[in-house]
């Protein structure tokens, strides 16, 4: 590096030089270096735990780097607090959503930079006007006064996007913004990103959807195990090449479906309704069957899942399991009846962040490793180790606190936890959110295996290919109602989208 540099207009907007970062037992970044040109959309790819989020947290001043240099506009920068990066024109959408649950949407967006009027009273009108402008430009419309804690993960993600864009920053970094969005919202986001690019803004975009990366970005940088692998031109690369760079070997990412034997009806839902959430929902699930639930964000799929699991009361209708009627709003009873729900919100409902990997993995099925109530350390370790291997969870050890795992690895822990749980009906609400290409295929195999062993499965996912690839039957929900039902043979992406989008 030349000491005493001069500010050079031809230099890239962002240069990352030999940046390293250690965590206890993990080399998260090892001399990573690449640069991002002004006005480009720069994709960032890599397996779970490759160091993507760590890198952007360093750029944003969340973590200090251990060594290396970062140049922004040709000037060396070393942000120690996120607001410093923000004031220099770097705004970030983090992988873990960071909204204040008790506040409403608009307060979250203007948090810390509220407009004040006379006598320092909040100028609500001005904020509302600006909110509308941002919403218009993005194409997401939210009631500004809904509380964030009532929003689904996808909706929270959209609020984060609105917020990041509202700063009007020069460099916008998005860490897996589409991991929980369905087709329509993703499409809107692409449009926004292209518009930002047209305005001369620069975007760094992290995603595990390789097609998306290739389509959207100008160049793609790949990290593997904390090291820089390379940067490729999106027009001259292929999915296979990127995956090869990520994993270091060829892998097939297509799940091969084959016919599964189906058993008797396990769950039947009749005319289930709840004011404002869903209406007249009726369907059955058989043992050995994977039932896909498709729909847009806010279609009510998660709400139905929660009602089945006994977390929601409902106004009308009934749920029967093996011929027995479930009392509404009793999770304990649903659990006894053999129902498990893998929640979409891993931070809030899926994990105990302060406990170790092993303890989280065995939590939902602790009985299996503690006959007589005493936990048998060896049994617990074996069970956890088996999941860790099956899902290739990247961690320095079984005792690592889950909070310190990368997002995708946390999601693997959630999946592993429900895989270990012994239930008859498993409702999977976004089981692969944030999981990388290779591991996803493994998750599909495991779901298939579960169904083959006679379990009933309801699969909710924002990824249509995932639903199409795994399900025996597919229901489409739209604004709280079931608008279509397809057998595996009939279903297609177009038909499902039509049913999900049609006005009811």
């Amino acid at each position, binding site marked *: 590096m030349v000491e005493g540099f001069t500010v050079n207009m031809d230099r890239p907007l962002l240069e990352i030089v030999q940046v*390293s970062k*250690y965590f206890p037992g993990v080399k998260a970044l090892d001399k990573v270096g690449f640069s991002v040109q002004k006005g480009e959309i720069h994709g960032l790819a890599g397996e779970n735990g490759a160091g993507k989020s760590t890198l952007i947290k360093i750029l944003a001043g969340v973590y200090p780097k*251990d060594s290396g240099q970062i140049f922004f506009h040709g000037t060396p920068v070393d942000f120690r607090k996120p607001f410093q990066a923000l004031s220099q024109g770097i705004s970030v959408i983090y992988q873990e959503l960071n909204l204040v649950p008790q506040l409403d949407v608009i307060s979250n967006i203007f948090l810390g930079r509220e407009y004040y009027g006379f006598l320092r009273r909040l100028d609500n009108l001005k904020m509302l006007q600006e909110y509308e402008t941002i919403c218009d430009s993005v194409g997401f419309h939210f009631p500004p006064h809904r509380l964030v804690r009532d929003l689904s993960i996808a909706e929270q993600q959209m609020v984060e996007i609105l917020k990041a864009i509202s700063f009007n920053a020069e460099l916008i970094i998005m860490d897996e913004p589409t991991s929980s969005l369905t087709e329509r919202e993703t499409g809107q986001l692409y449009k926004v990103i292209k518009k930002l690019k047209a305005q001369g803004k620069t975007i760094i975009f992290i995603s595990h959807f390789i097609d998306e990366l290739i389509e959207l970005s100008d160049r793609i940088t790949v990290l593997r195990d904390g090291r820089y692998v390379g940067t490729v031109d999106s027009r001259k690369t292929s999915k296979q090449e990127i995956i090869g760079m990520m994993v270091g070997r060829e892998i097939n990412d297509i799940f091969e479906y084959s016919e599964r034997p189906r058993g008797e009806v396990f769950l039947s839902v009749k005319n289930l309704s709840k004011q404002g959430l869903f209406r007249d929902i009726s369907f059955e699930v058989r043992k050995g069957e994977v039932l896909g639930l498709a729909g847009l964000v806010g279609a009510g799929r998660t709400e139905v899942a929660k009602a089945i699991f006994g977390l929601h009361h409902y106004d009308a209708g009934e749920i029967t399991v093996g011929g027995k009627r479930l009392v509404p709003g009793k999770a304990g009873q649903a659990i006894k009846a053999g129902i498990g729900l893998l929640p979409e919100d891993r931070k809030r409902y899926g*994990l*105990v962040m302060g406990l170790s990997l092993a*303890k989280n993995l065995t*939590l939902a099925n602790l009985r299996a490793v503690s006959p007589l109530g*005493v*936990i048998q350390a060896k049994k617990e370790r074996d069970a956890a180790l088996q999941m860790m291997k099956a899902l290739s969870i990247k961690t320095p050890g079984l005792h690592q606190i889950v909070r310190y795992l990368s997002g995708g690895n946390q999601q693997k822990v959630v999946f592993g936890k429900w895989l270990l749980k012994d239930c008859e009906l498993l409702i999977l609400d976004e089981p692969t959110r944030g999981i990388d290409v290779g591991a996803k295929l493994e998750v599909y195999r495991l779901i298939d295996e579960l169904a083959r062993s006679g379990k009933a499965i309801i699969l909710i996912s924002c990824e249509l290919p995932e639903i199409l690839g795994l399900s025996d039957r597919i229901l489409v929900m739209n604004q709280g109602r079931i608008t279509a039902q397809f057998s595996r043979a009939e279903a297609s992406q177009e038909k499902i989208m039509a049913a999900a989008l049609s006005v009811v």
Partner: protein
Amino acid sequence: MTSGGQVARKSLSLQKAWFLTKGRLRSLGIVIGLIIMILFLALKSEAFLKPANLLNILRQSSVVGIMAVGMTFVLIVGGFDLSVGSAMGLAGGLAVGLLPKIGLGPSLLVALLMGIVAGMVNGLLVVKLNVNAFVATLGIMNILRGILLMYSGGKTMFSPDRSFALIGSGYLGPIPIPVVIFTVVTLCSAFILHRTRFGRYIYAVGGNEEASIFSGIDAGFYKAASFAIVGLLAALSGVVLASRLQSVAPMAGSGYELDAIAAAVIGGTSISGGQGSIWQTVAGVFVLGVINNGFNILNVNEYIQLVFKGAIVVAAVALDTYSKRKT
């Protein structure tokens, strides 16, 4: 450039080492602190390291220790209990008051049962009626104290019973009975909290109640059970204290709840739940015990002791929060 690189590398490995130890620093810190205090006192006073004095520290620590172990359950599950000092006083009062009427065994049984019931009431208030633990136990604290005042007529109750006095003053071989009780309570609690399903669920509920419910855990039960446990152990410590003093003053036990919380917190148990261990609490109990004893040996004025103890609690919590924020 080269020398700069070397410096960078050196500071890097230092940083790495710092990172690696930081996680354990918290529990290590308290042990080191304890050792430093002991060394200091041993140098200052010959009497300090005498076995008799060490046993004395153990015995003095036992009463608050029994309660602090119970408090650990409640804190880890995400609760808080202010009523234990009053439960302690009332348990002693019941044991002393009922002893002449129904005999030693039954009166002890009634005292301990009262503790469990008081804990369960706390638990029900918190779990079923969603009353904030601080408020619920504050109310119960006053109610229990009121009951003791009514029961004793506001006067100190005395117990001349010899066998009752043994609980607090007797010895098993060379070991004072309260120490034996404290040891047994600690071992049982550590086993339950660290080795059983029940204990694991306490951590899970305290760490993330909603996630625990999704995992099929009946969170309310474990919260209520924790309150019942601390109630029982508070009553037990009350009986030991009453027996040691052979009397129960109307305000007996008051202030002990704060010592118990302080001990747990000094040990590293988090007020916000999900974290801590019995061993850490026991270390915290000994820190407080050594401070008390040491200050008495050195003849330090009691008011300064109080200031010092307060400072230690705040320092421990601040260190805890600081180390958490940094990772």
